[in-house]
């Protein structure tokens, strides 16, 4: 693999790993606070899977970079501006409905992405995708079921998820962005074309929204920047909590 392509793959893998890690951390914040015990367990189970994906992806990113950074170094020793996750996943937890909407919008994208990444010409990425896709297919069923139940539920639950959908929709555009480096990866058959994901994602989302009696928001102004390290203030607070221990006690081991 050429140096340029390797650098592009590092950037790509880092974005995907960071997105999984940050969303996994957000879900873990529900531990002990979900509206019912079963959901407490479900959200933290999904969090575990996502952190598992992040571990595989960040380990691989570290190998591609070749500067000796492992998964922990990448997760715990980078500040906000070095994180490359989507802005969608760093949005703070509001109510349960908001968490479900955020999760569903992400899950629907993750399923479409990993299904295509299984065919990557990069064996490691294809292996990670084949492992992850089985789990995210389960996640999207869970978040989709809840979205239908809340959307097609009571007046209050409908209003809450409709509100969350409006708030979060402007963060969905970032999932389909593509820069020059990614263009090279697409051309090399290593990653799927993000633009091609959009139609499949839209179809998946619209089918569930219809069942949930929710209107699909119009694609207006889309927030962007997370993929380049330009984040909302929320990510700093998340990292402060997530990175406290390794920053207070560098190189500590169990």
């Amino acid at each position, binding site marked *: 693999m050429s140096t340029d392509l390797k650098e592009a793959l590092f950037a790509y893998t880092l974005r995907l790993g960071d997105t999984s890690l940050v969303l996994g951390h957000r879900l873990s914040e529900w531990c002990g606070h979900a509206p019912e015990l079963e959901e407490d367990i*479900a959200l933290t189970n999904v969090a*575990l899977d996502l952190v598992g994906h992040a571990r595989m992806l960040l380990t691989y990113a570290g190998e591609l970079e070749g500067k000796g950074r492992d998964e922990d170094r990448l997760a715990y020793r980078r500040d906000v501006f070095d994180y490359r996750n989507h802005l969608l996943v760093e949005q703070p937890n509001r109510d349960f409905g908001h968490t479900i909407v955020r999760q569903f919008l992400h899950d629907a994208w993750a399923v479409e992405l990993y299904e295509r990444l299984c065919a990557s010409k990069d064996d490691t990425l*294809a292996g990670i995708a084949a*492992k992850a896709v089985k789990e995210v297919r389960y996640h999207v069923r*869970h978040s989709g079921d809840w979205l239908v139940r809340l959307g097609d539920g009571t007046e209050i639950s409908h209003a809450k998820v409709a509100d969350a959908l409006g708030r979060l929709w402007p963060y969905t555009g970032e999932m389909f962005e593509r820069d020059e480096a990614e263009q090279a990866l697409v051309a090399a058959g290593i990653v799927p074309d993000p633009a091609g994901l959009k139609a499949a994602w839209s179809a998946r989302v619209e089918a569930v929204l219809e069942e949930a009696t929710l209107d699909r928001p119009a694609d207006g102004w889309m927030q962007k920047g997370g993929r380049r390290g330009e984040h909302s203030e929320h990510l700093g607070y998340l990292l402060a909590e997530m990175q406290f221990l390794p920053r207070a006690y560098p190189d500590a081991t169990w």
Partner: protein
Amino acid sequence: MPDAAGCWGPEPGADAVVKAAWDALAGVMDPEIPVLSIVDLGIVRAVSADEDGRLSVALTPTYSGCPATGVIVLEAETALARARLDARVSVVIAPPWTTDWISDSGREKLAEVGIVPPPHSGKRSLTAPDEVIACPRCGSEDTRQISRFGSTACKALHACNACLEPFDVFKCH
């Protein structure tokens, strides 16, 4: 895949150290479902020996974030060391683990402790509509799913409408 008898183990004619390693690993129980050995669970992916008799053992996680993976690696290393075997244990992710790899004896052991074993994926997939699941205690087919996620990553929680008992179902994966 497990052999015709639904079991995992060394290839016929394998070295004595490879057979000894499989025996040692068959004694390592899954920390979260301690009726199943890691061999029953199908997560011992390969055991091989080099010319000097040094063993390489490959394990695979059930779920990406399974918190038991680290403990399982440690316990496998301990069991191999106790059997005085020189082995290096590594974790591989491809091909991804599937519940089809749970041995037939493993399925029987799950059923004995009241955990509904997973059907073979050829018969039912994760994304197919839920099929009838019989209560492992009273046998009634009048059951319902309480939650897609149970006490461990690999199980879902169901309940019986007849005898009212909740029970675990191993998710088809």
